[in-house]
């Protein structure tokens, strides 16, 4: 039963990911006084891309062809580490959050390589900028996870979620607030949202993620887009599991699980609205201000870690 729920969790993360994107786009359209596309639009986009053929640049090697598969594989694997409706996940063991962070890095490593393989300037440009952002984002990412791990004395994501579930919601410590702030900033940088990267533009001055995938088309592009949607959804789910798991099902009864699922949807919706407000409200940062943004995230996460030693003492 538990295994079935864990499997269902992973499937929800993977299959529901395009919907999250669709709702974000719709929210942004609403805030910008536009009509906007249907929230199901990402699914029809994917379906359209799957029906097309792959166009491969003449300079491309096998690496270009493998990257969408590897990227999708690693992202699916990341989805199996995140708890959703109950504090456990399909895969997971002590210290699994290091694995999660580095799995994301594995996908990104290959995507950056794909940027080079087209032989144009855009791909290398995207890869170079991604290298900067991701190398600076990794430290605050891990530090904020370490802060909550130390606070809960658990070294796995499911364990941390279970511990937080047992705490009083009004009794959260400063560590939680700092770690949440830092992790939220990292999520924005990692998933390429505003103000670090603009997912809706193809302007060469600004693009990071889009620069690397510029040469892709057809099913390959579909898998890359789907993977980045799953990544965004998994990161939101991670934020919820670590900092707001209240409402997760502690027993395997149908009632508890449906309540947990409803609450989860509400929490994701809240984060989506927050994201849409941020994206509509702030301008994209200049490339060389991104290190400052991530520097603030690093400082905040370092503070979170330092405060754990005070709280625990």
């Amino acid at each position: 039963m538990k295994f079935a729920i864990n499997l269902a969790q992973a499937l929800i993360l993977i299959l529901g990911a395009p919907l999250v994107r669709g709702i974000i786009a719709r929210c942004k359209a609403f805030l910008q006084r536009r009509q906007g596309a249907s929230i199901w639009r990402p699914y029809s986009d994917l379906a359209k891309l799957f029906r097309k053929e792959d166009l491969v640049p003449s300079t491309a090697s096998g690496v270009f062809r493998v990257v969408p598969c590897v990227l999708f594989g690693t992202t699916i694997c990341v989805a199996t580490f995140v708890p959703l409706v109950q504090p456990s996940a399909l895969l997971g063991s002590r210290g699994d959050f290091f694995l999660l962070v580095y799995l994301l890095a594995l996908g990104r490593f290959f995507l950056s390589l794909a940027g080079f393989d087209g032989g144009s300037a855009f791909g290398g440009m995207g890869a170079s900028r991604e290298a900067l952002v991701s190398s600076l984002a990794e430290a605050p990412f891990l530090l904020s996870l370490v802060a909550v791990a130390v606070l809960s004395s658990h070294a796995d994501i499911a364990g941390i979620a279970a511990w937080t579930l047992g705490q009083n919601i009004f009794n959260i410590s400063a560590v939680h607030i700092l770690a949440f702030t830092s992790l939220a900033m990292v999520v924005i940088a990692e998933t390429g949202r505003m103000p670090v990267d603009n997912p809706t533009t193809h302007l060469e001055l600004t693009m990071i993620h889009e620069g690397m995938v510029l040469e892709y088309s057809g099913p390959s592009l579909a898998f890359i887009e789907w993977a980045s949607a799953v990544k965004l959804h998994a990161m939101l789910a991670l934020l919820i599991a670590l900092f707001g798991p209240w409402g997760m099902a502690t027993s395997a009864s149908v009632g508890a699980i449906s309540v947990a699922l409803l609450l989860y949807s509400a929490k994701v919706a809240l984060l989506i609205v927050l994201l849409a407000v941020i994206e509509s409200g702030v301008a994209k940062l200049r490339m060389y201000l991104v290190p400052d943004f991530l520097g603030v995230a690093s400082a905040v996460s370092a503070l979170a870690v330092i405060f754990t030693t005070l709280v625990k003492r």
Partner: protein
Amino acid sequence: MQLVSIKIGFVFLLVSLGLFAPLVLMAGKAKTVRLFAISLVVGSNIVGCFVASQCFWRESGAVIDLSRFTLFPFALGIDRLSALFLLVICTVAVPVSIFALSYFEKHYDDQRRRWVWAFFSLFLLSMVIVVTASTGFAFLIGWELMTLLSAGLILIEGDSAERGHNVFIYLLMMHAGAAAVIAGFFLFLPYSPGLDFVSMRTASGALPTGIRTLIFVLAFLGFGTKAGIIPLHIWLPRAHPIAPSPVSALMSGVMLKTAVYGFARFAFDLLGGGPWWCGYAVLSVGAVSALLGILYAIAENDLKRLLAYSSVENIGIIFMGLGTSLIFLAHHAPVWAGLALAGALLHVFNHALFKSLLFLGAGAISSATHTVNLEELGGLQRRMPFTGATLLVACCSIAGLPLFNGFVSEWLIFRSFLGGAVLMNTRAPIVLLLMVGVLALIGGLAAACFVKVFGVAFLGRPRSEAAEHAEESPFAMRTGLGLLAAACLWIGIAPGFFLRPLVSLVQVLVPGAGVPQETLSIARVIPWTAAIILGVTIIVALLKRRERVVRTWACGLPGLTSRMQYTSTVFSKPIRFVFSSVYKPDRKIERLPEDQPYFPVNVTYHSVRTTSYEKTIYRPFVEMILSWAHQLRRLQTGNIQVYLLYIFLAIVSLLAVLRFQP
């Protein structure tokens, strides 16, 4: 029976590397003779692998005591720690020798080829002696031979003035380090009956605290010089790139590890931990080396220099693990000390595999294109698919990505940092927990660095005529590369096989370390992760089949040239910009012709890092010594009466010392 066969195998390894192979090489010129000698080198290393793995997995050992025949105690023995490092040497030596078969054939004439193989074989022997020595003298003889033979191997490639200068700095630094190591050994003497490891170990309990600390510091400095920790690393980016590629592979992959062996032997086995602050010192030196090493590596465009700096980084990571282990040892937390030590020792093995693979790859590239300058490469993956695939494995491994071996060891070190949380009420927790961030930054920068290496060299369009016409490496080279890549993947996907004996080794070095639970959790989850990723990858690959080859999008222009791609320099620009305080670059842009600054025909750009250890640390030091020497010259008057007076005064003072000695 088993013990006897191990002993026979060990003797065969020593004798065939030290005597047979060089003798056969010198005896005949025919190709078959040379091939026989080379197969002797390969074969004895395969035997060495079996011997080492028997000792490592089955916990048996072998001792060869030659003290009866030598002037001083000379004995070799294999215990668990030696077995690990012997395994490192022999496992790397087999593929490197197979690779070298084709590499030396291509690059040297008959005369030099015989010399290079003879030196190569003896160099391997010297490293085997270092890691299996069980007396101080045997260790020091091996240590010195190792330095001299590697310098000889560098000089075989040529003897220009610049090369000579680099080798001079290499030898100078090595001997300064060796002096510290020798002093470390001799400080044991008043308390220990001899310089064999057994009596040194028993004597270490009786050492006064001051001497103990001094030995520790000397060992750290001496072995740190050989390992290449910053700021003692200046020889490394000079010596490693100019050696022939298979030799660079051995120097970076294996020789640096003998220094880690020496430090682990001193700090853990002989001394059993140091003063309370030593762990923090080792940890912070390691962190600084790793961070600066990778930052220097990113800025390099010469592949072999880049790899040399990345060795500094990895040695830094290893010392971070060792330092963490010492901290836990000092705070009486043996379980976590064991975990950190296991991570450091596994990283030793992993780095040996992927760094020698990378250096061999650089050799394959230079064989195919006659350059290792990244700015002149590109598009090699389509021309050298197998070499490219193996190097991709190496790049992923060194970046510490999951499913590759570098991740497993870095995970263990990360996990041990997290264990700092149990040391509440000491000053350890904050330092160790924040180190997670430092190691994460290092990992992120390493990934950026090796995206650059593989992306610029192997993907896109070729940037030069030579890269355009590159051809796949010959069979022997591919075999060597393939074996190393397979080993990287094996440890990366199924680490449990290797972790179990490693845990037993750690339990020997750190009494009370029962780490299996922590180490096995990674061994359990990694194969599942691999299964999911590979499964999904294969399914996705099968799903998308239709494809059409088209021209790359060029914004509607007629076509792209290779000059329009991102280069290695440009790729690293954002990171160099952010960390510009580390590089303090000196940039020069020249536009020609000068009278038309807005319509230049020719633009040249130079950017040099101006932070230099030679200038800021070594030059003042050398000048200080020279000025002292200058002062001392006043003693030399050239007057014979004055010299007689010196002798007289020396005798009087010696007599006085003898008279008043208690």
